[in-house]
């Protein structure tokens, strides 16, 4: 997911990332670099495909599954899509790792400073403080914590992907090549792998399409959606509001001006919104379908 790089801010500004009718020439803060935005889009497509095709098997006993399976051109074609998407997902993962290595080489002197620096995705003591502070704020016992570049829930989402790719990817490969893997492991492991693969996928799908959607895109103050992950741009107001610590650090180091870029023209924004809405709808449909399958059609 998101990597250490450009600052960002989340501001209660109503317009959020929308292009303000006036001041369209106003520069915006660049939170995500192009590679990461592209990776996120590819990941959305890949993840949705994996989820939809995979769920047709997991919930094979529902009419929806049969319908979707036909829509994908049959179970074989759906399986093909599933594997292509899986390869894409692994590609994203590799690209990201390569990117991390390159970033460290270009911007940091040592792995230590990279991993434990303020812009790192790795959990640190401040995240624990923020977590506690946030819960206090939830119950009205304190101010909202002053988040840095990455909040603790963003870091959680980021590492969840590492876990997910490891668990779902490895079991998925086993199921993809059972004849090869059963040369080394007993046949019943395929049954175990099936359970792990499908339940972990359910967890991933369920989490992404509810908690992740809410945390990063759907919070009431951002409603209906925050498209920063697609544009990479956010207003300075938002930065000040959401990531005060990062803002201060940028001001202090004088790097803020470097990170200010031109806005996208409205047509690009419209395309992005269309895509985002589609993804959102698919995601919610899947959630509704899962709930229906689990509650009413479980076998």
């Amino acid at each position, binding site marked *: 997911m998101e990597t250490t790089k450009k600052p960002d801010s989340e501001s*209660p*500004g*109503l317009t959020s990332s929308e292009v303000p009718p006036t001041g369209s020439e106003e520069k915006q803060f660049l939170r995500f670099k192009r590679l990461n935005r592209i990776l996120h889009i590819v990941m959305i497509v890949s993840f949705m495909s994996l989820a939809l095709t995979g769920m*047709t*098997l*997991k919930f*094979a*006993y529902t009419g929806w*599954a*049969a319908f979707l*399976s*036909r829509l994908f051109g*049959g*179970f*074989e074609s759906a399986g093909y899509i599933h594997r292509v998407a899986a390869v894409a997902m692994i590609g994203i993962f590799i690209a990201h790792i390569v990117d991390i290595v390159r970033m460290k080489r270009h911007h940091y002197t040592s792995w230590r400073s990279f991993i434990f620096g303020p812009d790192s995705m790795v959990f640190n003591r401040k995240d624990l403080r923020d977590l506690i502070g*946030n*819960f206090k*704020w*939830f*119950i009205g016992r304190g101010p909202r914590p002053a988040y840095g570049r990455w909040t603790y*829930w963003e870091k959680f989402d980021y590492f969840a992907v590492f876990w997910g790719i490891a668990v779902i990817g490895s079991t998925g490969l086993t*199921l993809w090549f*059972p*004849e*090869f893997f*059963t*040369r080394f*492991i*007993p*046949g*019943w492991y*395929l*049954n*175990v792998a*099936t*359970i*792990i693969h499908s*339940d*972990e996928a*359910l*967890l991933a799908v*369920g*989490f992404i399409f*509810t*908690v992740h959607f*809410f*945390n990063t895109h759907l*919070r*009431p*103050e951002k*409603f209906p959606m925050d498209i920063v992950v697609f544009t990479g741009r956010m207003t300075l107001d938002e930065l000040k509001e959401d990531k005060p610590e990062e803002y201060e650090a940028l001001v202090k180091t004088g790097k803020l001006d470097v990170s200010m870029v031109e806005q996208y023209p409205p047509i690009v924004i419209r395309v992005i919104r269309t895509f985002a809405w589609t993804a959102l709808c698919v995601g919610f449909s899947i959630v509704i379908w899962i709930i229906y399958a689990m509650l009413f059609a479980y*076998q």
Partner: protein
Amino acid sequence: MEELVHTLTNRSRKDARSSFRWLGLVFFAALWLVPAMGQENSDCFACHSDKALTGTKTGKSFPVFIDEKRFGESVHSALTCVSCHTDLEGKELPHAEGLAEVKCGTCHATEQELHAKSLHGKAIARGDALAPRCKDCHGKHDILSAKNRMSPTSVLKVPFLCGKCHTEGSPVTAQRTIHQDHILENFSESIHGQALFKKGLIVAPNCVSCHTPHSILPHTDPASSIARRNIAATCTKCHAQIEVVHRKVIRGELWEKEANKLPACVDCHQPHKIRKVFYTQGMADKDCLGCHERRDLKSSKDGRSLTVKIEELGDSRHQKVSCSQCHSEVSVSHLRPCETITKKVECSSCHAEVAQQYQVSIHGKLVSKNDPNGPTCKDCHGTHSVLGKLSPNSPTFPTNVPGLCARCHREGQKAAARYTGSQHEIIEHYTESIHGKGLMKSGLTVTATCTSCHTPHSVLPKTDTLSSVNRKNVPQTCGRCHHGIEEQFERSIHSVLVSKTDKELPVCNDCHTAHTIRRADETGFKLEIMQQCGRCHEAIAKTYFDTYHGKVSQLGYTKTAKCYDCHGAHDILATADPQSHLSRQNVVATCQKCHAGATRKFAGYLTHATHHDPQKYPFLFWTFWGMTSLLVGTFVIGGIHTLLWLPRALQMKRANRKRMEQENKGKNGNDKEA
């Protein structure tokens, strides 16, 4: 052998018999009174009572022993040996070999004469070695009176005596032209034979009653007792005044006087099979058609048409059967011969076997109860136009059978209306079934039609254990065509021959259905069959659907393994059976049918795994609950976090909106000022 013939007396018909006895006595007295004849029987028996004594003829040795006791019991006991062996008279004893043939005719001249003129006698004259001589029927030294029950010529034994030669497989039937076959069998089943053998009536006729004992002649010989002109006389020897009960056939005494103008007894009552009556054609067809050809002929009772279409008769299978053979109560002597008809046509007169089947069938039972819904012969076969099932125009031709049965069994028709079972829209379903398509679309006349499974005449409800569609009989019924499958099935675990269980074992139609049978390679069938297996194998079917194979099948695709891909279809065996597709020896090969690289470890995949059974599948159970806990835990934490956040976020939104409004107000104010 020929020189030892001792026959003197002959068993024959009553009148002949007594006179010959007297004749015999006269001979006896004459011989007794001649003292010059010095040869006593005891002289002969001095040698011939030795059981080891043999003679030779044409190089072959044969015993010349004569049982003195049996000779003593015979009708010729009072005669001396030389009375018959006349060539020994006055000769020195012991005598030389090669005695002359005994001439029975010396005493039994009449019989000898009759025999010489008969079929048998003429054959002897021709030198036919198979032709019977006196001794062949009457014996030699042990001749008994025909009244003696022990005699081969006694009433009860005559059929067997004649049957020695006139039986299937004997040299006589094989090498000589005998126009009748199975004479002895037919006779024993005839009313005469039954009376003789079953009822023991010694007055019942045997062979000689009709054929005479000695003057047996072919029926073509005018002198024969069985010649066409004589047969009536022969029969009336017993059946006196038979013409009285034959008014329908003949008029009075004409039968006896000018029998050649009338049908002879045997024209209707076949010789040797007297019980079965066959009426020949030509009796009155023209007379019948004289009226019945008229298109406007109607019954005076109910007004139904009585027209007989002659063109229908011409093509019909009964083309050579005359009207009166079916409409049997006609009286030729009447002006309207048909006025004596009281009953409907009884097909069973000729089609006895089929009629018997029909009578026990559900159709026959309904008819016998006078149920108007019960179909009679003519409802299916038609009347005058009756055609064989091989004729494409026949309603019983394979392609026409479904339509024929549909007349009553189509939904809404009379048979369907009274039917309470589970099969509905039978005709429609059948038409769509593989059998129906084979028959109707592909025109395959060998395809199963209604009658192939239900039989044509023995139609019974499936609850009847005699029914061809009873559970017990279904495999055999289907096996009549699908024999190879039946063989496999009968060795499988589903066969009653293999599995001894109280549970109901499946038969063909449990999986294939009865009337909606589909091709087994059709997608629909392939998917449905899993539900069929699951009806009995409930738990195991359910766990199958938890696996990849099952889930893909559930989605409606047939490419993944289904029950029969692994277990076999008709040849299912217990997995413990080494022959099973899933036995240790065969399971890897079975997996390899789809997974070419399958190994023994691969075959360890649990094809019926469930994560709900901690005893059987602990790994799966704990993996599932581990994963589920992780999932629930993550959602609980994530959910609480989000839900707590929500009210705060809403609060933030309201604050933002307020601030925006104020900013806008300020902006607008500025604009106005500007």
